[in-house]
């Protein structure tokens, strides 16, 4: 057999094209901090005194704390308005003003990234909740200051919301500074 004979590359090309089409437009899951710089640059263009007050996942979360799209909400004192930038795959997918008053305090700088915080939440009850309830899943994780922290209203925390059909949801609050579980409750 002549090794130099031209091989039929058509099936390979078809397979490659199918893979490209399959993954075209899909963004990979990324930790919460991945889009922060871009969102901050946009926020500074919007208002010089814009400060980050809230972060939430906009798509399903993966086991390692990554998400395809994260929302970053900034508040401007001078404008008394909040504006959100949703970042997917290193690009801003949505930019819009929040249609509610949200003069929340800014989150502390140096907050723990989503992967580290999620690992703490899993250890603090999340993993057990998922194991004991059918189809239970982590639905939401959000970063903010004060609202969910009982002991220290100044603390910036990650709040995790685990949901299961027909069961009260599990809330786990993790300090975004040291990764300690602050509190859990069902509701």
């Amino acid at each position, binding site marked *: 057999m002549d090794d130099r004979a031209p091989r039929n590359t058509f099936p390979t090309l078809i397979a490659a094209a199918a893979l490209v089409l399959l993954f075209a437009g899909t963004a990979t899951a990324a930790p919460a901090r991945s889009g922060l710089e*871009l969102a901050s*640059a946009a926020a500074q*263009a919007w208002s010089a005194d814009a400060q980050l007050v809230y972060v939430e996942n*906009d798509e399903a979360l993966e086991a390692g704390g990554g998400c395809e799209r994260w929302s970053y909400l900034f508040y401007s004192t001078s404008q008394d308005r909040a504006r959100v930038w949703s970042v997917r795959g290193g690009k*801003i997918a949505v*930019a819009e003003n929040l249609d509610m*008053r949200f003069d929340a305090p800014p989150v502390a700088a140096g907050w723990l990234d989503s992967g580290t915080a999620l690992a703490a939440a899993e250890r603090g009850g999340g993993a057990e909740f998922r194991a004991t309830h059918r189809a239970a899943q982590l639905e939401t994780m959000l970063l903010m200051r004060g609202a969910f922290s009982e002991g220290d209203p100044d603390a910036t925390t990650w709040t995790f919301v685990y949901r299961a059909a027909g069961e009260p949801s599990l809330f786990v609050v993790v300090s975004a500074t040291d990764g300690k579980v602050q509190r859990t409750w069902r509701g």
Partner: protein
Amino acid sequence: MRMRHAAPVLLLLLAPAFAPRPAAAAKNAGNLPPTTVTTVEVERERPVREKLPTLRFLRANRDFIRARFDRLRETSRVSRAGAGNVDPRFLEYRRLLTEIAAGKDSVTVNSDARERQSVFTSVEDLAALERELDMMEQLLNQQRTRLGYLQADFAGRQRTELDLVITGGALAGQVDSVRVTLEDGTSVASSLTETQRGSIQHGGALEVFRGLVEPRPQVIEIALMGEGWSGTGHGFVTIEPVRDRLTFLKLDLSQASPKLGIGSLAASTWLLETGTDVTRAPSQAAGTPQAEADRDRP
């Protein structure tokens, strides 16, 4: 959006902008990568974009979260002052200021002495004067170095900006003003004087807007006002400013007429080339940011 310039600025780039510039072209070809000028379409309808949900938990629980914040405000507590690392540049600025003050003191002392000494009576006095002049020259050199440091620190930081210019005279009608509206509602109107109209007809460009913009795909709304143009409706241009770069958007009216509609405007975008060495003199800095005028980039 925050604008840097409130008033439109007329860029007087008349004949040179459209004339062949072999010297400039050769210089650019040697020093800078070729700039990509992208033609963009001026559409008659606002492009429809994918609507994605955001902040679902916050929106669903807005009353609960607001109530929590309200409760927090009612709770009195002792606040702690946060302490962070001081940016080393701020310490450097302080050192520079101290040096400037010291230099100023030296000059003042010498100046006072000079005033007291109205007549030079000997060669020794002239020698002393020469020493003082040398010292002043040295102080000026030090000041130049400090200014170079500050320029590199500040001028080197390009943020995401848009510079919108119009050029060309319309085939028909008369454009009296241009209104540009950004997605966040910022609206800027520029009126054209007779002189400005004449300038853009001959290759000049009028800066309609320059300011910070968000680094994302966005639609710019454009409306021309004036004889024949007021009824043509608004045009929409989709651009995607690159983060920490200056994006130019040029609207060329030279092939536009009210009969053809707002879509007859030609639009193009390009980025300002960025260099690194901003401390060198403009004539020496090969990579200094520049936007050399040519047919596509007024």
